[in-house]
């Protein structure tokens, strides 16, 4: 994890006490809202007709943490994200966003909650009839923000995803990877503190998929964003749980692998099987798991 103020990586558990100054601990106490999880699921059940989709799911996503949700197709991964956005309602249980119980919120109340959340859809879900500029500016146009401000924000977001040159293009003119990146830019407008990725690398070639993962890493390490990253691709998991972003002396964002000195503690994994969590923990623990399903999933056979 990176400290958002200093943009320096926070070290692993063994070195953390040595490295933290007393003032750092005082700062943590000064920010009590950081103790409240960004997202919390409490015993969520959901069925469609007779089919159980989620069967007693509970987990939390801390601030600045990325939770990778793994599992086979139809295992309830995307449903989890739809529940957070209020696009679906659970049969029972509680969902909390920033400590606020949103389970029984109406559509009107959810509109306010959704302003805090950015969502990156599987295929980008860009509005076909709008240009890249209008897609990214969508939320700001809806809020009636002045056009000069909108343009500054849109350009900032497109720079973040390195797609400023595509500002006037229509979605149909973009490649699959570019569409996803525009989707990321659109999700980040308004600087949401929670971002949800729903299989954003599905169907992309490995270098493009890595680019999308690096965007998620930048958000996690440099913007202190809490995220859920739904995927079934092990490559994504490896990148997200071993690579961190930092800023070099020239002010450029660089990506480095964790090593002996630095171990990422801000990425955890959940594995779903038939609507239940069968694993929750770090990537090293997942790799060491003896569970047959997990081993099969990881090896692909």
């Amino acid at each position, binding site marked *: 994890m990176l400290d958002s103020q200093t943009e320096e990586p926070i070290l692993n558990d063994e070195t953390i006490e040595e490295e933290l100054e007393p003032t750092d601990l005082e700062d943590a106490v000064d920010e009590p809202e950081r103790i409240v999880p960004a997202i919390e699921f409490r015993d969520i059940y959901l069925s469609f007709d007779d089919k159980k989709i989620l069967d007693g799911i509970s987990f939390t996503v801390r601030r600045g943490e990325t939770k990778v949700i793994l599992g086979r197709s139809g295992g309830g991964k995307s449903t989890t994200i739809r529940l957070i*956005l209020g696009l679906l309602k659970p049969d029972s249980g509680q969902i909390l966003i920033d400590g606020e119980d949103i389970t029984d919120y109406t559509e009107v109340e959810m509109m*306010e909650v959704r302003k805090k959340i950015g*969502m990156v*859809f599987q295929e980008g*879900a860009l*509005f076909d009839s709008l240009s890249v500029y209008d897609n990214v500016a969508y*939320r700001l146009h809806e809020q009636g923000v002045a056009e000069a401000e909108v343009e500054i924000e849109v350009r900032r977001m497109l720079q973040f995803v390195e797609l400023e040159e595509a500002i006037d293009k229509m979605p149909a003119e973009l490649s699959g990877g570019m569409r996803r990146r525009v989707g990321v830019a659109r999700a980040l407008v308004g600087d949401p503190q929670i971002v949800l990725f729903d299989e954003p690398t599905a169907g992309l070639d490995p270098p493009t998929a890595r680019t999308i993962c690096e965007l998620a890493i930048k958000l996690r390490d440099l913007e202190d964003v809490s995220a859920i990253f739904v995927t079934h691709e092990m490559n994504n998991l490896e990148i997200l749980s071993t690579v961190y972003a930092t800023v070099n002396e020239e002010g450029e964002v660089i990506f480095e692998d964790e090593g002996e000195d630095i171990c990422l503690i801000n990425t955890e994994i959940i594995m779903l099987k038939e609507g239940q969590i069968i694993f929750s923990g770090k990537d090293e623990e997942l790799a060491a798991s003896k569970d047959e399903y997990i081993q099969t999933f990881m090896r692909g056979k």
Partner: protein
Amino acid sequence: MNAIKKNLFELQEITNLIIFAFIGMFKRPFYIIDLIKQMDLIGVGSLPIVLLTGFFTGGVLILQTFPTLAYYGGQGEAGRAVATSLVRELGPVLTALMVSGRIGSAISAELGSMVVSQQIDAMRALGTDPNRKLVAPRIIALILMLPLLTVAADISGIIGGGIVASGLFNQNYDVYVTSVRNGITVEDILGGIIKPLFFGLIIGSVSCYKGLSTTEGTVGVGRSTTSAVVLSSIVVIIFDFFLSRAIMTVFDIKPI
């Protein structure tokens, strides 16, 4: 779910859609630009086909009725027959059916594609209510445009009838115009404008509902489009009977 339950559920959902769309109209932001775009698409875009349909319907009415009227010596009333038929019935119904085919299918296909490609979910995730942004402008545009299109179809039909009457049956144009003027009343015109208001509501709400309830990918889009056109056309024709009866009662309109 049995058929009755399914139909009742659909009726409830369509009613909810209409209620939420209309309630949303009075909340900010107002989607005026979207409304104007839809009015242009529905009104201006449908004008050529509606004018053509009206023109040839008026023409064929004269073609079929003139010989019969002449047999009884009533050819002087041919204009009245065309005008009354068009203004009371054929104008509103044919316009609604044409618009249902052209616009109902387009609305359903567009919204269905947006559902399938998760654009509707994206819209909700970005804090926009699709009922207000997509459904309300389409329904309101249909309610506003359909009466205007109907009037255009009526006029075009009367002109078409006049051209056939004078061109094929050598009827004096003044006789035809006088017969038209004597034939239609203010009540007929009002009735002919009230009906399309309801037809617009029916086409808009059915098409939007069918589009938004699309499932099963691109195959589902085709299915939604077909059922939107079929259902809205049938409902328009059924409603036409009850509306005609209600209008005749309210305005005390007598048969020809």
